[in-house]
């Protein structure tokens, strides 16, 4: 077992990297716009499908284009959803946003089924061509290492953007008090739309990155959404740092759990989530939220 620890660790970090990309977008949108976007998983799935159009080619330039265009497209779809639908329910009760975003997730799922069919789409060429890296006698897919590095880079860029730039401060100001931000000359609607773009971008990137070693298929949105919720409940709703730590916890538990207690691996995640909810309802790094 001890010899396998580095591999379980890397598998866990790889899974955490993907979860972080999805949950960071979800939590960012919630922290700024106070919208719990149940369509986020469907956007992640749409990102995987759009990426599949490009990733089925063997030309590295087209593949890279896929990794750029899929997130951008999902970012724009996310903005269109915010401007076209979500903005009308900002001041309504939470039930409206849950109904709307859940309805949207069903619509996006159906659009995906109609457009791409119901058969899983596999594009493993990239993973195969990248080969593996030898780690302590075990071969770890080089692609997975790239995903880990990509997520770390995204996390750092996002952190620096939010903590060190004026636009980042403005986004944080809007998340703390949108009314006061507006009185200080900030176009809050524009910031909400931008946040949805960022959230969609991250979901699309997650969808594109998860595709090569797995498949794009109907239903992948539900799993992604549920696990993202576990991540942000543990890490704290609205906290990017919480999404990072929550993803690591969930990723590592899943990785080690599959080997150590495969029958209870998912149950164990829910038990941890329930424990966090009982002991610290706002999560490890979460804040208490009020609508302003």
């Amino acid at each position, binding site marked *: 077992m001890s010899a396998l620890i580095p591999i379980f660790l890397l598998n866990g970090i790889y899974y955490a990297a993907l979860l972080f990309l999805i949950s960071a977008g979800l939590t960012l949108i919630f922290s700024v716009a106070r919208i719990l976007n149940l369509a986020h998983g469907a956007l992640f799935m749409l990102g995987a499908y759009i990426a599949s159009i490009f990733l089925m080619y063997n030309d590295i330039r087209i593949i890279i284009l896929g990794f750029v265009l899929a997130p951008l497209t999902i970012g724009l779809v996310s903005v269109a959803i915010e401007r076209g639908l979500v903005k009308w329910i900002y001041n309504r009760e939470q039930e409206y946003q849950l109904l709307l975003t859940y309805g949207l997730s069903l619509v996006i799922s159906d659009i995906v089924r109609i457009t791409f069919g119901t058969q899983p789409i596999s594009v493993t060429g990239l993973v195969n061509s990248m080969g593996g890296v030898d780690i302590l006698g075990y071969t770890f897919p080089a692609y997975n290492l790239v995903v880990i590095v990509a997520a770390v880079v995204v996390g750092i860029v996002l952190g620096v953007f939010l903590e060190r730039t*004026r636009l980042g*401060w*403005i986004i*944080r*100001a809007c998340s*703390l*008090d949108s*009314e*006061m*931000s*507006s*009185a*200080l*000359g*900030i*176009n*809050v609607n524009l910031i909400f739309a931008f946040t949805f773009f960022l959230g969609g971008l991250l979901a699309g990137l997650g969808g594109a990155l998860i595709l090569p070693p797995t498949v794009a298929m109907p239903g992948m949105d539900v799993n992604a959404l549920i696990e993202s919720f576990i991540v942000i409940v543990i890490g704290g709703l609205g906290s990017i740092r919480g999404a990072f730590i929550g993803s690591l916890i969930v990723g590592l538990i899943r990785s080690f759990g599959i080997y150590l207690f495969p029958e209870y691996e998912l149950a164990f995640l829910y038990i941890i989530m329930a424990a966090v909810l009982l002991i610290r309802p706002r999560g490890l790094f979460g804040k208490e939220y009020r609508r302003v």
Partner: protein
Amino acid sequence: MTILELNNVYVDIAGVEILRGISLQVDEGEVVALVGRNGAGKTTTLRSIIGLQKVRSGKISFNGMDITNMPPYKISKYGIGYAPEDRKIFADLTSYENIKVAMKDSSKEENILKMILDIFPELKPLLSRKGGYLSGGEQKMLCIARALALEPRLLLLDEPLEGLAPVVVKRFYSSIKKIKEYGFTMLIAESNIHHVPKLADRCYVIERGEIIFEGSPHDILTNNEIAKIIKGY
């Protein structure tokens, strides 16, 4: 020159008429106090000017432009700064970040910061401290500093002295005087009649959503009937 004019402004909140035909004007360079007891409609008046409260009827003009029911961010960009009574500091942002968020023109950062620290030198060592860790008085300073960072032509201050210790209140008198020296026009909502002469050139008295008196601060202090209404006894 009149910079702000409210003409017969009516505001309802949750079906209750809060402002009943308010009319007032503020000239450039003036410090005008809107005096009244709690619940008289001072905060609602300021919130209506900045666009945070919907106006049912009437007109608010700023610099000759109709700003009635415009989005707050546009009104702010036209040159009105607002410092609310409850400060509304962004607790997770440092003092510097709070100020910088409001700054429209980064190229003027040095000059704006210099002016702010001249008015509130106490903020200098606090620039890197998060807003949530400041005392009430420090938050009041930061709140006004943040509004000043907009370089507004008109500054709306809602109860700037509320909840401050007497020694700090004296300190704020000189700050507000200094803000005036910098040429800012101010409309100050104030419930304590005794602060008014030290703050304002001219004042309006508001009671139950109506302007019932207009005059100099001295006029208010010497008018027993008005003083009684404001004090409530």
